[in-house]
Structures are given as structure tokens and as C-alpha cells.
């Protein structure tokens, strides 16, 4: 993790945060191809942005870039979403000692992913930043550019709606 008084190199950002950026993108879009593209776009923007980066809230800076890249892609495409494919979630089933348990866990993961995609975007984004990426409420407020009260509300309403969708 980069401290507040150092400027990380691009390689450090890619190494230390790449997986979280990918997880963010995957959980927001539901598919690996889009997540893959987004990671590359974010890392390109990070590399450009690091030239003018000044030590401060690195997490807020990084995730503001990440979500802006995501939203730019969405706007540019301007398309209605489609139902995502399950992707490789089934890929490691064969090696499980208990295929039934593995299958039910995989199905549960797919159900949670599908429910996430059914959330209104603002709720989905807040929930993913909190529960997948692991940002604090302050960091989410800074990344998204909303007051902390709105962060609280979006996370709470997102989780409540997710629970309803999963029941």
C-alpha cells in the first residue's frame, strides 16, 4: 500500500492495485472481457496521471480515475446492458472433492453477481467499492464525489435491495 507521502510508480500501482481494479470492474460489469479492458484503460490513465499526482489520498485518487474510466466506457457505448455469461466460474469444478458443494457455491456466487447487476448503478457502485474493493466511507465519498451521508444511504439501500433480490 502506498503511503500518503510517497508517489508510487506505475508498476507499483499495477502490481498492488491491479487485482482490486479488476475485481471492481468484474463485479460492476459481470464479465471478464469488459473487466480486462477496463483494467488496461485505468492503468494507462494512471500512468498519465502519475506525472501530475501529488501525495495525498492515493485511494481516493486511484478510485476516482477508475470509476471515471468505467463511466466513460459506459457513456461511450451508450448501450443497454445484456445478461452476462457465467464466465469461468465453473472452470475449477472438476478438481473439487465435493462437486455438489462446489456447484452450490458456484451457483450462489452467480446469484449474488446477477443480483448485483440488477441494482441501480449508484447502489451497485457504492456496495462494490465498500464490500469488494474495501474502501472506507470517506474514500468512497472522495472517489465518487458525493457527501458521506449519501455514501451511507447508497450502501445501506444497495444491501437491502440485494437481500430482497436474493430471497
Amino acid at each position: 500500500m502506498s503511503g500518503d507521502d510517497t508517489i508510487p510508480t506505475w508498476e507499483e500501482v499495477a502490481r498492488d492495485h491491479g487485482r482490486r481494479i479488476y475485481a471492481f470492474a468484474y463485479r460492476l460489469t459481470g464479465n471478464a472481457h469488459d473487466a480486462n479492458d477496463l483494467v488496461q484503460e485505468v492503468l494507462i490513465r494512471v500512468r498519465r496521471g502519475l506525472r501530475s499526482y501529488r501525495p495525498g489520498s492515493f485511494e481516493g485518487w486511484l478510485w476516482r480515475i477508475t470509476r471515471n474510466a468505467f463511466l466513460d466506457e459506459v457513456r461511450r457505448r451508450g448501450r443497454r446492458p445484456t445478461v452476462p455469461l457465467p464466465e469461468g466460474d465453473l472452470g475449477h469444478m472438476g478438481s473439487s472433492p465435493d462437486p455438489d458443494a462446489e456447484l452450490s457455491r458456484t451457483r450462489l456466487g452467480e446469484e449474488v453477481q446477477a443480483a448485483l447487476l440488477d441494482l441501480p448503478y449508484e447502489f451497485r457502485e457504492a456496495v462494490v467499492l465498500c464490500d469488494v474493493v474495501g474502501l472506507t466511507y470517506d474514500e468512497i465519498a472522495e472517489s465518487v464525489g458525493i457527501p458521506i451521508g449519501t455514501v451511507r444511504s447508497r450502501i445501506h439501500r444497495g444491501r437491502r435491495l440485494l437481500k430482497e433480490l436474493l430471497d
Partner: protein
Amino acid sequence: MHPRELISAHLDGELDPVAEARVAAHLESCPACAAELEDVAAARQSIRSLPEPPGAAGALAGARRGSRGVRRWAVAVTAAAATAALAGAVALGPGVADAPFDLDALVEQHTARVVLDPGISTLRGPMGGP
């Protein structure tokens, strides 16, 4: 009054001490809010239990390749631009060859092309939101 929208913040330890004490006391005496706490805690747990999504390694390897690719591309463009600038200087006379070569702008163009190309067709975005 039910502090409904503070319940997740309570769960995440994101309330200041005064609000935390108020919400905790309320949850002790309000079955409806206690039930809501259980609901959001279950949702939170289901998201936090998700496995690492498939394909991360490939994406990161791709990003590293992409980084090198941009550099290779930039070298190629530099060479091509030098050739073009020379041709332009010959064809158009003085001035063209003196124009500053803006590598950053070219890399940005390349980035735009890369981003435009792959065809992300299934992004779900804010257009579905409230």
C-alpha cells in the same frame, strides 16, 4: 425515529461515537431495525464471500503487455512520424519539420484506438439507475 440509513454504517463501524451509541441503543429496542440489520448483514456477507473473479491474471498480464506495446508502438510512430515529417518538409517546404513532436498526444490517440477497438458490448451502466 428509526435510524434506518445508519444501520449499514453501524455494521461497518463507520459511525462517530455519538451516532453509534444512539443507533446501538435503538437496535436493542426496535425489532424492525434489528431485522433490517440482519438483512443487510446477510447481503454484506454474501458479497464479501464472493471468490476472486475469474480472469484477473490474464487481465494483468495483458496490461503489462499493453504497457510494453504502447512503448513499441510509440517507437514505431516516432519513426513513422519522422519519415512523414521529412516527406512533409520536402513536399511543403520549411516549417513542417520544425513542428514539435508530441509523443503524449500520439500515445493518447493510440489509447483511444485501443479502447475503441475491443467492443465492450455488455457494460451495465448508470442508464439503468434511478
